[in-house]
């Protein structure tokens, strides 16, 4: 009925594979590590810096995650943030404890994710960053 056979997927998607796909999509991407050794991608697209990582770790990835933080000097208040969240799919904003605005998107990737879908998600993320 719904069974569509088999397909090629990244299962698991590694941070290095993610960085390569980001570069292919025209994003500047460099793998880095947090103080505790967790790998992530330090990236820039259209002059906006953001982070990308695989939540859940390499052994059991749960999510392909994007995050960027902006100073809250652009007039974005609680109501505007809620309106932004209500009007858009595939990303959301929140205020951090420091009063900055953070935009995040976590794509569930349990079971794997295709190359084409990673690239499509990068396009959506780039578009969302352009809306801020």
């Amino acid at each position: 009925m719904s069974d569509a056979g088999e397909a090629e997927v990244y299962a698991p998607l590694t941070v290095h594979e993610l960085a390569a796909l980001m570069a292919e999509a025209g994003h500047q991407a460099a793998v880095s590590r947090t103080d505790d050794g967790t790998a992530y991608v330090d990236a820039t697209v259209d002059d906006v810096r953001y982070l990308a990582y695989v939540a859940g770790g390499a052994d059991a990835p749960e999510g392909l995650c994007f995050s960027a933080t902006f100073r809250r000097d652009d007039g974005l208040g609680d109501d505007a943030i809620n309106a932004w969240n209500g009007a858009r799919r595939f990303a959301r904003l929140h205020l951090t404890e420091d009063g900055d605005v953070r935009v995040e998107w976590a794509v569930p990737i349990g079971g794997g994710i295709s190359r084409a879908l990673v690239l499509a998600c990068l396009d959506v993320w780039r578009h969302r960053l352009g809306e801020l």
Partner: protein
Amino acid sequence: MPLGRARVVEPTVPLMLALLAERGHAGAPAALDDGTPYIKADVNDRVCSVVIQPPNEEYPLGGVQFYAWFDPAAEPLLEQANRWNADHLFVKASVSDNGKLELALDMPFDGPVPRDGLLQLVDLWAAAMDAI
């Protein structure tokens, strides 16, 4: 790491009903006023809706969407939504036009997706229903 192969399925209402049942959640097919099919489900004693959103002009990626709405709590709703979005990776909170707290989970797809990924989605939603 090379791409692997995964069993993939077309996201459909009947399939999502089957996956909900596989995880022990009740669901029944329903339809919006315009005839759009969806699932009215009970996940961990929370009433929610599951929609297979096809791609469209605004969103070239489809979405497997879970929604639930909650009546206002004592805490101001905008603050509650902001705290949820800061603390939870996959499920977005916003305040709806009719003053309810709305939770939404939206997994993008561009074709068949790994069946295990849809099961993970059900589990992510169930965890959110426990957390709210």
